[in-house]
């Protein structure tokens, strides 16, 4: 009997600890502290993506230094998953059970997000995904929740939406024989699948769908295979490093066909690694975001304001991300503002934070005036929100098409 009582008490304690974040301690400034987890690839093959997390660190630091939000100060627990799903799973558990964070922002890779979804669902911790774009991340979260509300929200442009816009471009420009070149990770496989589906929806069948290892030292054979298949364009779904290898291979072969990449084509390492071979590379991005519009030659004030906050803490060194490639940084900033707004409104209770994010209009963001999720919709963007972006003289410019 005693053992049973002890077991029940232990269960209550464990449930109590997992239902709420770490109990908030009140500081001398009267602010209560809550912990927020940040996770992403600060090193490894997609280390360039992990640097965007600085935008959330900057957002929280700025809030803390300007009196907090709703009586709360935010303590950031930043973890490097090294682009490694196993590491991501381990660090997610650490953030939830050891650090007792109220919500997690990240990760930066789809493969890592996929392994994190069951963990946050089981622990009932909100996960805001600002960089990893895999369609299956949110889809899996609904499946994992088994009819209960999903704990995962995406604030980036998911693969299905990117694919739809890329397919629409192909159709509009008479590219009827594209070849898809993708890496063999969850990210690349999902992207290729979404792209094939989106192309089929506009009546196009790719002449080849070619998979390659991530971080390949040379993609020439795979690009050759696409050329051999008679492709009239090359559609890429991989990280910046591999897209750069594909661009270089295309240039090495003197094969002058349009190169259309998913959003990774816009990472700074794509252009620095590909060099002149990056020129003319096409990609997709939300309209009126961080890319310079050739007509207005400016970005919206909310983006500029968020970037200024990032620049205040991370500006002026070699790792500072320029505004025109800070797109995912803006999404990370959005994620931080969403978590802060929810905590300010409902306190450090994870369930209430999730409910708030799902039901309330979310404002004070970089990317949009407002985001509204719903019980069924945990993503933000549609293909109509996107436009094409081109690499021109080493810069990213919105293509007025």
């Amino acid at each position, binding site marked *: 009997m005693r053992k049973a009582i002890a077991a029940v008490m232990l269960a209550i304690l464990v449930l109590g600890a997992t239902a709420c974040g770490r109990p908030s301690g009140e500081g001398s400034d009267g602010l209560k502290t809550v912990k927020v987890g940040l996770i992403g690839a600060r*090193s490894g093959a997609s280390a360039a993506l992990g640097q965007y997390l600085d935008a959330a660190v900057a957002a929280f630091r700025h809030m803390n230094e300007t009196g907090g939000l709703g009586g709360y100060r935010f303590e950031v627990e930043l973890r490097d998953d090294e682009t490694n799903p196993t590491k991501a799973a381990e660090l997610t558990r650490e953030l939830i059970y050891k650090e007792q964070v109220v919500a997690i922002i990240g990760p930066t890779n789809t493969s890592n997000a996929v392994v994190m979804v069951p963990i946050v669902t089981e622990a009932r911790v909100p996960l805001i995904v600002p960089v990893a774009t895999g369609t299956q991340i949110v889809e899996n979260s609904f499946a994992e929740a088994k009819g209960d509300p999903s704990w995962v929200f995406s604030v980036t442009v998911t693969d299905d939406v990117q694919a739809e816009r890329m397919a629409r471009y192909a159709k509009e420009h008479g590219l009827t024989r594209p070849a898809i070149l993708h890496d*063999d990770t969850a990210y690349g496989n999902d992207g290729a699948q979404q792209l094939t589906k989106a192309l089929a929806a506009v009546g196009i069948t790719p002449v080849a769908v070619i998979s390659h*290892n991530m971080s390949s030292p040379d993609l020439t054979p795979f690009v*050759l295979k696409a050329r051999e298949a008679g492709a009239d364009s090359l559609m890429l779904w991989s990280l910046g490093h591999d897209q750069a290898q594909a661009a270089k291979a295309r240039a090495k072969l*003197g094969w002058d066909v349009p190169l259309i990449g998913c959003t990774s084509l816009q990472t700074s390492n794509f252009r620095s690694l590909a060099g002149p071979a990056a020129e003319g590379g096409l990609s997709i991005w939300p309209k009126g975001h961080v890319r310079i519009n050739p007509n207005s030659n400016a970005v919206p004030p909310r983006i500029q304001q968020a970037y200024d906050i990032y620049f205040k803490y991370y500006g002026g060194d070699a790792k500072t991300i320029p505004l025109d490639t800070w797109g995912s940084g803006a999404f990370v900033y959005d994620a931080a503002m969403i978590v802060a707004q929810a905590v300010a409104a409902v306190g450090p209770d994870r369930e209430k934070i999730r409910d708030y994010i799902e039901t309330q209009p979310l404002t004070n963001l970089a990317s949009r005036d407002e985001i509204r999720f719903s019980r069924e919709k945990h993503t933000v963007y549609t293909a109509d929100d996107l436009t094409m972006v081109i690499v021109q003289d080493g810069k990213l410019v919105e293509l007025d098409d």
Partner: protein
Amino acid sequence: MSLGFLLQLVFTGLTMGSIYALVAIGYNLIYATTGIINFSQGELVMMGGMVGLAAVTALGLPPHLAILVSLAVVSVLALAVYRIAWQPLSRRQSGGSRLGWILSTIGIGIVIQNVAMLLWGKEFHPLPALVPDGNLRLGELVINSVQAFVLLAAILLAVLTELLLNYTFLGKAFKATSFNAEAAAYMGINTPAMVGFSFALAGALAALAGFLVSPLTFASSVLGLIVGLKGFGAAVLGGLGSNRGAMVGGLILGVMEIISGTFITAGFRDITAFLLIILVLVMRPQGLLGQPVTEKA
């Protein structure tokens, strides 16, 4: 499938294969004088690219001077490997374990890689090539200037190494040391210096391989492991100790991995290459051009 497609694949395979061959020759040089495999050879190749990158970006040197900096630094680093990972163990060979060098060379390789990661992170970096990037079309085959330069330079370096070892006094002293160190010492050859020379020469080749290949693969602190493994594979395939074998092994390996990766699946690229090595070792243990070794009972 067109002939141009096949030729293009072979050309690309030969380019990477020539780099594996240089790495394999590095293994052979050290094996000849010490009888050991320097498992940090791949990390020396990686350092060739990373030091070159530092010379270009931090010192602002043009590539043709940066390669000299890389050559000097990595040769000294290879000598450090000799002093730290081999020399202390070689003095104790008659005593304890004869396999300590495996751990010591792997260990120093890990140290080199971790230091490189601390200095440059794990990201990929562009390194300018020694020649301008351009294409020459020969029928259906497109010859890229950087790839062609890598292939020709690697072959030239392999030939020069053979000339150095066969037609110079230094080379003859090296060969005498590798054939019988004790007899060579009696003949007045400074055998420890010859062993140090083999490490430095292997380091120089690694530096050149790393600098040559980085414009194609991008320079990265994580490049060493895979290049080191492929180079070792090339050395075993060609016949450990045979530099001509290393060249043949490297080129075959480069072409095989490209062909298998293209026609089977990308994942088979490495698998097929190493299956080929196993097959050759089963059928011809001494490798393609190696001499059979018989030990007296």
